């Protein structure tokens, strides 16, 4: 009951934010907020694979691309038809219904690809997954380049601008909440055991392949949704946005934040999105923007190789209003 109340409360809060924030906050900052949130979703979901479960995936940009392109095809080709059949609903509801449909389609298609790639490759240990996912990302990109219906090498433009603050905030919150509660559950313990020692985990009866595939598929699902938000925000998807460099960018985020720390992934994703933009204001040394950015990363890795937060996550439950009172020791 309390959960339902909290859910409705958040829903209304996000709706209000969607309605009133754009009027108070400068559009440039809203833009940076949106990009930060998309990167947070990507980093938190990759953290589940690379951080918590300890598998080295290099394919997050590929999942993002699959999710983005699938959802964009859904809204671009099927969207108008769905809206036409839903004409008894107010236009704004119909539009958001289509977008929800696209989000799920994008997420599920990425998850399905994750399953396809994950089942054979996650049976192996070590660096094989990195190689397979790197290859997968490139295959996805080359496939997109050769399909004319989704723009091919010209990029997919004219995607409807469905991404708004409501979707951005709710999906970011959903991703963090889902990954956090998953990590805290018994499944999460299994993920951790796979990371710490696969042989020991298997000896204790943990089906390691099963848990690796689960983590991989869930991570891919959220990456697909991030791709959907990204495409419907920029109104453009271009294969060049999904090279392996994009995968590395996300990996850098979770390493800077501290592998395994959800809080770290969130903070690092925000910092690394804002840093290059903040450096635009440096005046005379502006041309050295990307050098300063890279230097900052190097210095950070030398001084804190475990990342900003290690695998520490603050106990936010302490501030959760609906918590049962803990017995005082």
């Amino acid at each position, binding site marked *: 009951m309390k959960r339902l109340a909290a859910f409705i409360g958040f829903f209304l809060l996000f709706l209000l934010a969607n309605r009133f924030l754009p009027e108070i906050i*400068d*559009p*440039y900052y809203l*833009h*940076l907020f949106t*990009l930060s949130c998309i990167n947070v979703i990507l980093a938190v979901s990759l953290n589940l694979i690379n951080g918590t479960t300890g598998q080295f995936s290099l394919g997050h940009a590929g999942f993002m691309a699959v999710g983005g392109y699938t959802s964009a095809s859904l809204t671009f080709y099927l969207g108008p038809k769905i809206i036409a059949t839903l004409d008894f609903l107010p236009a704004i509801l119909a539009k958001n219904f289509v977008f929800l449909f696209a989000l799920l389609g994008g997420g599920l298609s990425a998850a399905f690809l994750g399953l396809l790639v994950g089942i054979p490759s996650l049976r192996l240990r070590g660096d094989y997954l990195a190689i397979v996912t790197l290859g997968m990302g490139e295959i996805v990109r*080359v496939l997109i*380049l*050769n399909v004319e219906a989704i723009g*091919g*090498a*010209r*990029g997919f*433009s*004219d995607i409807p*601008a469905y991404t708004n603050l409501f979707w951005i905030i709710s999906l970011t919150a959903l991703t963090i909440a889902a990954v956090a509660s998953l990590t805290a559950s018994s499944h999460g313990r299994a993920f951790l055991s796979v990371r710490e020692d696969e042989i020991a985990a298997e000896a204790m009866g943990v089906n390691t392949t099963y848990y690796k595939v689960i983590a991989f598929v869930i991570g891919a699902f959220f990456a697909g949704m991030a791709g959907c938000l*990204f495409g419907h925000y*920029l*109104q*453009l998807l*271009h294969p*060049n*946005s999904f090279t392996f460099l994009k995968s590395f960018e996300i990996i850098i985020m979770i390493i800077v934040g501290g592998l395994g720390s959800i809080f770290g992934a969130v903070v690092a994703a925000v910092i690394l999105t804002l840093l*290059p*933009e903040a450096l*635009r*204001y*440096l*005046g005379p040394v502006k*041309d050295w*923007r*990307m050098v300063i950015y890279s230097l900052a990363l190097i210095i950070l890795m030398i001084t804190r190789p475990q990342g900003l937060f290690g695998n520490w996550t603050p106990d936010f439950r302490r501030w959760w209003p609906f918590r049962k009172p803990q017995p005082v020791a």
Partner: protein
Amino acid sequence: MRKWIIFGLALSLSAGCAKRDDVIKIGEYGSLTGTTATFGVSTKNGIDMATEEINAAGGLLGKKIQVIVEDDRGLADEAASAVKKLVTQDKVVAVLGEVASSRSLAGAPICQENKIPMVTPSSTNPEVTKKGDYIFRICFIDPFQGEAMAKFAFENLKVKKAAILKDSKNDYSVGLAQYFAETFKGLGGQIVAEESYFEGDQDFKAQLTSIKGKKPEAIFIPGYYTEVGLIARQARELGLNIPLLGGDGWDSPKLTEIATLKKPGDALKDCYFSNHYAADDPNPVIQDFIKKYKAKYEEVPDAMAVLGYDAAHILYDAIKRAGSPEGAKIRDELAKTANFPGVAGQTTIDSARNARKPLVVLKIGEGGAYEYMATVNP
């Protein structure tokens, strides 16, 4: 110590944000770093030159022009960030950029939404200017280049059977190939082979052998100079001595350097490509520009520099005619641009906000020198 660093940062931030009303702010976004960095840098050189000329002559509307440049690292999302910053933070009156169509497509909706005119110097994808009535382009588009070369091949070179070798990963190359094929077939010609390669490939003998078997009279290769140079060399080694045709992606001093068998550029001798301007055109506007550019940057201007220079001048001219730095007025004047004497030909903006301007066909002659062949009018 740390306090001082923070203080210094805050100071530089506030200095950067200081309002200056005695200048007209123009935004520019481009790939100053990344894989297409030379495009961004050349364009910036051209724009800087045009700006200095106007400022030296007293500026615009009694004020100096200040161009605020933002780098987008060649990424679409960074381009969107850069344009958003220029439009909402710096409050520029107009935006110049981008070279690549994919980045222009990311920036255009933002300019359109904020009613800030955007002029792209060299994005050739037809989609770009369809984004709205504030988006202009001052170069010709892919269809025109493909059509012009098809006509040139059919009418001037009397070619009846042509082959196409395109970079299937590159939108520019795919677009040119498509329009070339359509026009060429429409004229009564025949496309006997269509092969493709990827940017970065080194060996093209398989495709060239297959093309050779079909006995075409010319090959259309709408790619970039690195691959074109290698293709030309390997074609000659295979004994395929027919003219090669191409687009403005050929234009680079590196082209003839790569396409060298015995003498510089001999692999591309008697080949033809379309371009924005001819450096040997005696037109004083062009010669004057080349002289000034060489004096300033110590290199021969490429097409990006020329188009950046023209884009800036066309925009400044429109602002001058508008008499005010208001977006809507600048837009109206940009739309009225007619027969503007740019370095890359007389430019007229049509009702679809694209430029109608001639292109030139260049022939590669002895020693890799470009010779002016023909002007094709739209």
